[in-house]
Each structure stands twice: as C-alpha cells, then as structure tokens.
C-alpha cells in the first residue's frame, strides 16, 4: 500500500512523469498486437472459420456452374477474389465487438495514446489472421479452379496487398456498427460498395498475369490504395469508435 501511495504523490506533482511519450506508444501498440493475437489464437475456430468458408464457396462454383476446366479458368480470378473478399468480411463484425461488450473499448479510448494507432494495431491483427492466411490459401484453391500457370504468385500477392486495404476499410464499418445489437448485415451493406475498387484491381492483376500483360501496374495501384487507406482509415476508425461508445 505505502509504495503505491508515495507514487500517487509523485505523479500528482509531475503529471508528465507517467510513461515517456513516444516510447509509450510503441509499448502500447505492441501490447495490443500481442493481446489480440493471443486472444484469437485461444479461439482457433474463429481464425479457421473464414478459411473454411473460403474453401466451401469455391467448391460451390464448379458444382453450380460446370466442372469444365476451360470455363472455370476464365472465371477463376474473379471467383477467388470475390470469395476471399466475402470470407474476410465474415470475421469483420467481431473485430471490435468483444472489446465493446466487455468494456475494454472504453479503456482503449481513454489510454493516453492516439486511438488511431491502437485501432490500427487491432486491424493489423485482423489482417494477419484473416487476410494473410486467405492469400496463402488462394493458390491451392486456384489449382481446383484450373487457374492457368504463371498467375499463382500474383494471386497470392494481390490478395495479401488487397486484403490489407479491405481490413482497413472494413474496420470503419465495424467501428460504426459495433454499438448496434444487430450490426452484422448492415456492416456488409456499408462496406461492400467501398470494396469495389480493391476488387477491380485485385482481380485485374490476376487477369493480367494470365494474359501475360504483367501485373506490376495493378499491384502498384493496389499498393497506392493501401497507402491511402493506411493514411485515412485509422482516423475514420477512431472517430467511429468514439461515436459508437456514446451510442
């Protein structure tokens, strides 16, 4: 007890002495990354669900359309991209919901760190455990859709790049709807139209690789979209979280 009391007085006299600015942010962001990763890895089902969903949706298409490899090959880039996009959307609703329900979100808002950066850490975890695995899994499903050789690497790279933008944009929607009891469907309605540019250039990259046009331009545009999203989305996420916590 006495130790704590003496430090209370010290801090009251020198408010700035608590936590060094600059170093403190790195510590907080790192701890948030670590915490969210630990949380997700303790509930492995939630990490696996989007991947299983991805594989299932891809299985539906040959059954629903035709097993003809030539036909599948022409639509494979778009199918893989759309299915991955929907799979990433699936896990978006839970991005902030757990923290909202148990009160951690309030604490996140009151941390003496920029909320945008802490939100970014949470989005990064979402990408690491959803977007990245989807990108790594896509080539395997590409084989099942007879995706022409030479486009597999581009498929994985475009998905890895694009899904980072999707996580960032989607997090805005998740932050806006986290205070609503049934925000799930609304979230898709808000977010899907905003996903379209990423889809166009992502699927376009794979298409271009198949045609042998070189996908560098597409990947560059995907990178530019990601840079833009990285600059703007964290602020929108922070503002949205502040709105939701007041709801």
């Amino acid at each position, binding site marked *: 007890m006495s130790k704590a009391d003496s430090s209370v007085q010290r801090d009251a006299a020198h408010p700035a002495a608590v936590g060094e600015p600059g170093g403190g942010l790195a510590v907080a962001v790192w701890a948030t990354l670590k915490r969210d990763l630990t949380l997700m890895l303790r509930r492995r089902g939630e990490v696996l669900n989007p991947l299983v969903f991805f594989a299932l949706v891809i299985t539906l298409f040959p059954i629903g359309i035709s097993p003809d490899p030539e036909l599948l090959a022409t639509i494979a880039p778009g199918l893989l991209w759309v299915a991955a996009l929907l799979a990433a959307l699936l896990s978006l609703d839970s991005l902030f919901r757990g923290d909202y329900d148990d009160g951690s979100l309030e604490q996140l808002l009151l941390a003496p760190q920029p909320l945008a950066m802490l939100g970014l850490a949470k989005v990064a975890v979402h990408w690491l455990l959803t977007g990245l695995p989807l990108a790594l899994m896509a080539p395997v499903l590409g084989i099942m859709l007879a995706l022409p050789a030479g486009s597999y690497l581009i498929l994985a790279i475009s998905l890895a790049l694009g899904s980072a933008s999707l996580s960032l944009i989607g997090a*805005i929607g998740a932050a*806006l*709807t986290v*205070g*609503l009891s049934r*925000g799930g469907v*609304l979230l898709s*309605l*808000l977010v*899907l*139209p*905003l996903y*379209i*540019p990423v889809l*166009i*250039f992502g699927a*376009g990259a794979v298409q271009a690789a198949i045609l042998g046009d070189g996908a560098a331009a597409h990947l560059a545009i995907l990178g530019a*979209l990601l840079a*833009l999203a990285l600059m*703007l989305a964290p602020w*929108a996420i922070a*503002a*949205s979280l502040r*709105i*939701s916590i*007041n*709801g």
Partner: protein
Amino acid sequence: MWAFINKLRSPKWFYAISERLLPWFWVAAAALILVGSVWGLAFAPADYQQGNSFRIIYVHVPAAFLAQSIFVSMAVCGLVYMVWKIKVADMVAAMVAPLGAAMTFISLFSGAVWGVPTWGTWWMWDARLTSMLILFFLYLGVIALRGAFASRDSASRAASVLAMVGVINIPIIKYSVDWWYTLHQPATFTVTGRVGMPMEMWAPLLIMVLGFYSFFIAVTLMRTRSEILRRESNKRWVRELAGERH
C-alpha cells in the same frame, strides 16, 4: 464569415430565411423544367444515330448529376455538423439522403430503359450505370445506418462519418470502374457525353439540369423546415408559431 456561421447555428434563423427563398426556387424549378421538357421533347433535333430515343438524355443526365452532387452536399453537411456542431447541417443531410437515392434510381431506371433501343437489352454493365448502381448502394448504406441507431445524436454522427468516407471513395470507385470498363469493353458506344453535341441539343439539357437543381434546393428547404419544426417542437418559438396559426 463567422457571423454567418453563427447565424446558421440558429434553426430559427434558417426557418425564417428559407421561408423567403422557397417560393423563388419553386418558381425557378417549375419554369426551367417546363421549358426544358418542351424544348427537349418537341424541339430539339433527333440524334442521327439513336433517333428520338436520345430524348431520354434530358431526364437521365440531370438525375445523374444531381445524384452525385447530393452525395457531395451530404458529406459537406456532415463535415459542417461534425466540426461546428451546426444542427441544421445534420437536418439537411438527413433530408437529402432519400432524395439522392431517388435521383440515383431515376438515372438507373432511365438508363435501363434507354438501353433497350440502344443496346437491345435492359441492362448493360456500362461504366456509368455501374458507378450509378454503386452510388445507389452507398445511399442505401447511409440511410440504413442513420436508421439503425436508437440515439439520434449518434445516428447523425455515424451518418456524417460514413458520408465523408463515401465521398472520398466515390472518385476512386468512378475511376476504377471506368478503367475496368475499358478493359472489358464490348464493341458498343457509350450513350451519353459525346463531344460536339450541337447547341439545340445541349441547351435544353442545360436548362433541365438547372431545373433539377432548383427542384432539389426547393424540396430540401421545404423538408428541412419540417424537420426543424419536428426536432425543435419543444422550443418556445415553435410553440408560438403553432399558437399563431389557428
């Protein structure tokens, strides 16, 4: 400038000033739309390729213009509301959203009907129509989000943020859809926006566009006035206003 912003803070002031402006916009809207319609339907020459079906342009293009402008105005209102906490701005934003969705619908519907004589099909994934369709979904998202909150203040803020996010995305969506379309373009020509349209064709179009804008302003003023009364119904000036008009 500050004085003006401070005046805007008062819904009562907006209510008074809009009462004087409103008739002018109604008159302008009615006159411009009437002149533009008669001119466009009966007097403008038929298009050498599309014949008379091209007259759909006089409703399709003004609606499309308005649909985009309304989204921008909604985002600007959202920004004004978030930065200066001017409630009238949020009321305007709430009132224009359905109007914008309606305009998007008109432009989609007229575009689809126009597609039959031009392309021989009701729907073509034309760049403009596709962008319009996405815009329609964006409108539905903003309207749905505003309706989903129990607290009106939170709903207003959330809708403002979404409108601003949307307006940043609209040019990106538009350019990426244009690019996507040129990549997959089938061998048809785009229906609107050709260069070298003669004056007899674009003059009525201009008049119709102006008429639609006047209509938009008039409807927005009118509905915002209603919204002011609704939200301020417990304020004294509204009570007095209601008391006077027996």
